[in-house]
């Protein structure tokens, strides 16, 4: 059985299986090391990094919703330098593709951040969060405007050297294909989609929003149909490889995203179902492929009958 994934094009990105963990839901990887073998995963995308340390949004930051959750963690992190000196060395980067997820307030800062990471051997690729709906200073705008999205992509690409860059799209747009085409045109090597849906919750007893930031990002199985639709549309619109995500909670779900054309997937909120979720998923995918007689994922990929 071949679960190996090689992204086409000049990226050189290879994963031993299509299951990666999504940014913000798997910490810096080390938190999950007691629950499974990190190197059994296709790859991990670490929590969003910024140039300077950030305190993130006020509490409460998370709330459970039907088949999902809202979050407005707001990119709390101790800055890219601390990541490189303290977290990255703890990861088995030789055997595990570690992807840095980055966030910044303007294209120049995106470039600066990329340059710092581009110098790191242990980083397999850079995923650019142009879609975070949580940080007020313009966070939502890059991902919702084709011109801005392209500008960020160019800035990152210029600074990335030979590191592949992945642009992560927001579903909170009228037409996701416009943005997808814009970032492809601006030099993105890979697209990942989707980030969270813009949502909200309130407590009728305290009469306050469930999360201090009022509006947060909805994730989990609840959004899977939207994520699958976006992945399908983006796969048809662009020719660069696509990493799909949103609500994946079973091996069947993984194959659904691959069926509509994704090369790989990321698992987010389901890591909270149990901390060994992603490790188990790799094994379950193998079993399911066996049961379904899928010997090669590339053959199955995009074979949706329309």
């Amino acid at each position, binding site marked *: 059985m071949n679960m190996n994934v090689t992204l086409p094009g000049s990226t050189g990105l290879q994963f031993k299986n299509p299951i990666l963990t999504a940014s913000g839901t798997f*910490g810096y990887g080390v938190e999950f090391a007691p*629950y499974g073998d990190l190197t059994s995963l296709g790859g991990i995308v670490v929590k969003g990094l910024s140039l300077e*340390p950030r305190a*993130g949004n006020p*509490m409460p930051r*998370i709330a459970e919703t039907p088949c999902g959750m809202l979050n407005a963690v707001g990119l709390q992190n101790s800055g890219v330098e601390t990541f490189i000196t303290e977290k990255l060395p703890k990861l088995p980067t030789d055997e595990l593709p570690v992807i840095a997820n980055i966030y910044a307030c303007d294209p120049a800062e995106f470039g600066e951040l990329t340059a710092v990471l581009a110098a790191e051997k242990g980083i397999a690729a850079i995923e650019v969060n142009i879609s975070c709906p949580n940080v007020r200073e313009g966070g939502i705008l890059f991902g919702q405007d084709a011109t801005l999205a392209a500008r960020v992509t160019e800035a990152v690409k210029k600074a990335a050297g030979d590191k592949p860059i992945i642009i992560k799209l927001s579903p909170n747009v009228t037409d996701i294909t416009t943005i997808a085409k814009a970032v492809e045109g601006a030099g993105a090597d890979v697209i990942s989609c989707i980030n969270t849906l813009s949502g909200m919750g309130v407590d009728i007893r305290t009469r306050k929003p469930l999360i201090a930031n009022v509006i947060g990002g909805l994730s989990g199985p609840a959004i899977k149909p939207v994520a699958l639709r976006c992945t399908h549309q983006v796969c048809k619109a662009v020719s660069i490889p696509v990493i799909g995500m949103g609500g994946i909670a079973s091996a069947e779900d993984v194959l659904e995203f691959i069926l509509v054309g994704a090369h790989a997937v990321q698992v987010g909120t389901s890591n909270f179902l149990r901390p060994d979720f992603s490790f188990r998923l790799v094994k379950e995918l193998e079993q399911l492929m066996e049961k379904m007689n899928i010997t090669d994922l590339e053959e199955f990929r995009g074979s949706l009958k329309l």
Partner: protein
Amino acid sequence: MHQEQCTTLTVLDNVPFGTVSGESLFFALRIERPEWADWQPGQFVMLRPEGWALDMMWARPFSICRVSKRDLVIFFQVVGRGTKRLAELKTGDKVVVWGPLGTPFAVEDKTPTLLLAGGIGIAPLVAYAQKHPQPWNLHMEFGHRMPLNCYPFESINERITAASHLERGPDDLAHFLDLIETSIKEYAESDGLVLACGPTPFLRAVQAFAAKHGARCQLSLENRMACGVGACLGCVTKTTDKMTAKGVAAGRAQACEHGPVFWADQIVLDED
């Protein structure tokens, strides 16, 4: 390096404790013993019934109340959707459990130690009293709103002294807080240790008294949690510049990893 594990365990039984207006709101949930090498009082587990399918995605955090050769016991109160469904668990049902998690209460064998419990916050302190090497150095003050038989007060290690205080209204509360302040002051004077677990307003009062009288004090927080392992940053508490724990940055510490037990002077309690 770590010893946490995640396993699917079987419910042995789920015993209601006392009733409130005819309703059972407190339960001792007994499940198969996980294969843990070790655990310490103040630590907790994340627990999620398999029957929840995908509707409620998060496990719920519960203090470890007792671990024997055969079983793990947690003690819980019904407060919302999740605990309501936990109350429906029956013998034979499956639950996913990971732990032991978090930082335990400090144990100083020979130090006079005051245990302050508010309501269901008694759970980890039951474990503390049970496991302490010199229990005669412990004393507990327990404040509660529901009938005493709703809580595992009876099962507290007999070798410690403990007093319970039923809170029927504002007068009782004021009286209880006075009593607590006096005790905290005493323990501060003899360089004792004060350990508290209970609702946030209660913890806030304890924190203020400890600061005022210079007591060495630890608080166990009950922040909302999703991952339980320090990854999601959903459970953080603000820290003061006294915070010394390794890896805490940007003035925020995960309650699941650097807590749930914190030194009272190292954290800022949130408004709600």
